[in-house]
């Protein structure tokens, strides 16, 4: 097969170094940039002094942004009004979890709901907030909360037990409404 050579026009390389004109142009651009930064700094400073900020900054952790209901923070367990968990330890979240971060040991109770988790651990260092546990749950017992502050100083601290995970149902109502609306049940 015969080879054919073609010539492609390439853009001219930008000259390095340059004339006095290019130097001056660059210096002017630098001053312009500094002026923008300083203008914003002074305006914010003035607003801060007058206590009327003109720009939007959330002063975390004193201020917090309200998350929308579709937001997925760490999964928590729903606590019923009688103080017990709604979970019946059916194991579907454990099965659905792609990172295997949930560990459940079921046990029998004397209540009308005869089964509950004796152990319900979530390894938060593995959880990736996908929400599949919430979607799999047939009892609306595990939901994604708005809590994202789950840092810990040790590996052990990233392991959350049932007692730490229980959140009263009244605090989780918006999210429960959301999953009822959006998931096919």
């Amino acid at each position, binding site marked *: 097969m015969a080879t054919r050579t073609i010539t492609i026009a390439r853009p001219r390389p930008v000259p390095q170094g340059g004339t006095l004109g290019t130097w001056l142009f660059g210096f002017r651009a630098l001053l312009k940039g500094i002026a923008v930064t300083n203008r914003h700094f002074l305006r914010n400073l003035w607003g801060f002094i007058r206590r009327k900020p003109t720009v939007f900054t959330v002063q975390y952790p004193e201020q917090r942004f309200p998350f929308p209901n579709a937001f997925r923070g760490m999964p928590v367990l729903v606590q019923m009004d009688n103080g017990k968990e709604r979970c019946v330890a059916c194991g579907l979240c454990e099965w659905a979890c792609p990172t295997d971060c949930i560990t459940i040991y079921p046990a*029998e109770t004397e209540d009308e709901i005869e089964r509950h988790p004796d152990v319900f651990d979530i390894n938060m260092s593995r959880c990736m907030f996908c929400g599949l546990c919430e979607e799999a749950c047939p009892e609306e017992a595990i939901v994604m909360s708005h809590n994202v502050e789950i840092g810990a100083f040790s590996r052990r601290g990233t392991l959350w037990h049932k007692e730490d995970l229980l959140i009263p149902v009244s605090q989780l109502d918006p999210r429960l409404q959301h999953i009822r609306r959006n998931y096919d049940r």
Partner: protein
Amino acid sequence: MPTITIDGQTIEAPAGAMLLPVALENGVHIPHYCWHPKLSIDGSCRMCQVEVEGSPKLVIACNTPIRDGMVVRTKTPAVENTRRGVMELLLVNHPLDCPICDKAGECLLQDYSYAYGSRRARTREPRRKLEKRKEIGPRMILDQERCILCRRCVRFTREITKTNELGVFNMGDHSVLDILEDKPLANDYSINTADVCPVGALESKDFHHKLRVWFLKKTESVCPSCANGCNITVHHYRDRIWRMMPRRNDAVNDTWMCDHGRLNYKHVNSTDRLRQPLLRRNGQLEACEWNEALSNAASALRQAARDTAGRSIAAVASPHLTNEESFRFGQLLRNLGVGRIDVAVVVGKSDDLLIKAEKAGNARGARDMGLVAGGGVPAILEAAAKGEIRVLYVCGPDLWQTTDRQQLEQTLANVDCLIVQDTVRSPLAERAHVVLPSLTFAEKSGTFTNVAGRVQQLHQAINPPEGQLGDGEIFSRLLAQITEGPPTFDPAAVLGEIAQAVPAYAGLTLEKIGSQGWQPTAGDTSAPAGASV
């Protein structure tokens, strides 16, 4: 033989056979609840209805004998509609218990409900309220709401155990499964009713609310609790046994197993397990390294063998060893010139169904491997009492359980070195000079020979803790220290040695044993695997 056509597939089957088993054996799945391969035909669930050409209505496949030229269709709209109708009626009163039901995941009602069920109930009436969590026996729980009245369990207690504990009481839609007040379901085979139950109405107390079945991994094995060698499946997860289930083998246990065998797995998960070799120093048993324990045992054996040509050594083998391990033990003892060997076996009650008197899985195999010589346990104890035995090598707990305690303790006081090889801490181990921890049936592979001489395979189900040696490895390492042979133990290779050395096992290979076992005397009678239950 009559020839029939099912869904266009031509099938030859023996005359008089029923349509459902013929279809199942030929890969045509017809949904069914009340039919069970080992029970009589009831025809109460109506789920297996199929279309037969020439018949004005649909017929139930489980109770329709085949005839030559029969044309059967199992996937027509009429059949599918009927299945949907039957499912709807079965689900009218079935509670929505799946999240808390132990059967979920292996429940026929759940499976067929996905295939033929409706997502919405059309009934407005409340579901029937009946007794839940009713204790009907020492090992069984009944949930009457979940029952679909297929009567498999009733037929089981009538036909297999012949104890008649369970029955369906009342009539029509008041029918309810129950026991008579004064007769609990307490027979030796009661947990089989949980296996035959297609839903979660009957549940084993032992497995109640323990684990979801879909997490369980399954390994084929043989029950080690008596000489019958029932085929089982070990269900394990996170290196723990959670339950044991019977596996179909028409030549041994059909589809059943006894409660004692089924619940006899706790010692495997026990916290009393011996995990490290122990050595007696200054009168105290102390943990030590494997090398130290083995070289101590080997030097005691070697010394006694050199001084008295093996006459001062006696061995009591365990009937819980596999054939391969027993064979290796035999090699070790022959090398030392040991003349007094026996297998100690616990003997208990037996019945004509499955339970055999010898309460260990491989007593026959150990004897077949030549571990019986020189008058047995009484002769060993007598010789020890006279001070003729310097080294006594005991495998397993059976010697302690079968011999008179006082006599045994007096005898053991005369022995210079007692080597005990066992899986759990025992009174015998407390008196030993060297304790070698070994593995249970679930942690090793090998073969067992049952009371009828059938050789069957065990597969390793769970992983032992790192560094733990099995019986075969212990014998091999001791043998290596004494004869400088290879210290490794490969069950498959040892089986090859057995096939050459033991005449009754000539020509035996793992392929011949397969999943259903091999009968050495009657030739290859391994039955083909039957339809799934």
